[in-house]
């Protein structure tokens, strides 16, 4: 079997003395959407940080066969990964359009960048209205859209999303996921999503993993994960 686009094997990650990931295995196939579920502190955010080389990591993280562990973050990003951090992390003192340009940092095709900016303005009209405004002055939902669009400006093969629905109204979350679904379908961008809203995420993802104390305790198709008794009790609440 061909290797998946993203392959994590026996990944350990630690902040100083505190080990957060303990032998984690996970994969995301080409064009696939995978959701990572788990309680607070299970290590979901750390998993994304480990992929990007933002935390001390042992084990193997491979993107299209290439080892990422031990590489600096900027190198990892150049391989085709975009990371939309938790709490959005837009550049508050830069304008909306400048934020998008920073997202295209590794690209050289000026015309293509401009076309993509217009394209995301088309997808998120609110951003177009506010293109010259400072990003820090926008609402939470607008900042989240900007963070997603900024991530996609890098034309990634793999998009890592950390709690995209955090703090968003339900209607905005739905719209955001509808957009993500469309991007996945039309661009075949693979996605690894950390999400509290398990129900919503599983309705969109092909597969899911459940993380507990730094390792995977359950993995399978979205239906399998949804159908698991323990899983339902723990995260879906019914």
């Amino acid at each position: 079997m061909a290797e998946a686009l993203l392959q994590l094997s026996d990944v350990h990650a630690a902040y100083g003395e505190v080990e957060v990931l303990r032998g984690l295995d996970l994969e995301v196939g080409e064009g696939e959407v995978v959701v990572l579920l788990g309680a607070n502190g299970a290590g979901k955010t750390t998993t994304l940080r480990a992929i990007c080389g933002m935390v001390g990591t042992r084990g193997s993280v491979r993107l299209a066969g290439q080892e990422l562990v031990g590489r600096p973050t900027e190198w990892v990003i150049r391989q085709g990964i975009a990371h939309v951090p938790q709490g959005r992390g837009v550049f508050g003192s830069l304008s909306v359009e400048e934020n998008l340009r920073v997202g295209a940092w590794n690209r050289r095709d000026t015309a293509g960048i401009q076309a993509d900016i217009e394209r995301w303005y088309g997808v998120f009209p609110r951003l177009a209205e506010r293109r010259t405004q400072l990003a820090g002055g926008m609402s939470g939902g607008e900042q989240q859209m900007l963070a997603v669009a900024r991530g996609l400006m890098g034309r990634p093969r793999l998009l890592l999303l950390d709690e995209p629905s955090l703090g968003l109204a339900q209607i905005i979350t739905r719209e955001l996921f509808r957009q993500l679904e469309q991007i996945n379908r039309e661009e075949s961008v693979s996605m690894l999503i950390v999400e509290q809203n398990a129900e919503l995420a599983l309705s969109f993802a092909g597969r899911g993993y459940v993380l507990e104390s730094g390792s995977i305790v359950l993995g399978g198709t979205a239906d399998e994960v949804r159908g698991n008794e323990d899983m339902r009790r723990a995260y879906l609440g019914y």
Partner: protein
Amino acid sequence: MSPNIDNPAYLLTLLTGGLTNGALYALVALAIVLVYKTTSHINLAQGEMATLGAFAVFELTRRGVPVWIAIGIAFLLSFALGAGLERGLIRPLERRGVFPVILATLALFLIINAGVAIIWGTQPVEAPEPIPGGIEDKVDVLTGPPPFFVTYVSLGVLAVLVALLLGLWLLLEKTKLGLGYRAVAANREAAQVMGIPVGRMYMFGWGIAAALGTLAAALVAETAGTLDFNSMGVILIFGLAAATLGGFDSVPGAAVGGLVLGLVMAFVPGLFTVVEGDLSVVIALVVVLVVLLVRPQGLFGTKTLERV
């Protein structure tokens, strides 16, 4: 009140003197701000590094290099020194916390200060003159009596400040390098996951700050007529005050802060004879304190404008 209060020449002289000194404080404040914006460090050795740069200009001109070329060479050398110190000294220490970095810049201050004194001695040397500074190098404005004139040095210092502000604005607002620098200043971690080489932006900030400092010190020396190993000691204090006044993370704030500080320090003792000249320093710092009480982020500093 000063008896010269209704004398236009006297008032204009206070104005140009204040603006000239203010422009020098502004240059030092700019250097401090450019380091602070990305790395959140205050380089206490900023002034001494600048003195070293000015002595490099002095040494080169003594060996026959034309003064503006000497400044250009010193500018580039300072850039390399600043960037190298960030990479080789500050960044490894940063992992251990803020205090080791502050102590390291303090150590640099002492080392460079002593080093300059050892190499070039403690006696003042004649300052290189990038701007014609002779007795006749002035523009007469009021023939008087009493006369009023503006020296080429004053005009030159102000022109350098304006040119640098314009250049910095172009560099930071209109280039990709500037976009990356501002992104790191706005949100370090997010900049990192965009693929921006954050470390190189730190080096860029330190380098450009050191280069600006060298230019400032060369002009400070010319204004004073002489250069010595302590030339930038007091100026660093005023630069820090100007940066505080303007807001530590604001480039235009540094410029305005410097000019305001220069004007206050010229006019307060100039108009109120009860204030001795030496007290102008105290007055300046009082102004800074008052501004900080009313606006803790300084005149142009940004409160982080973020909603949850």
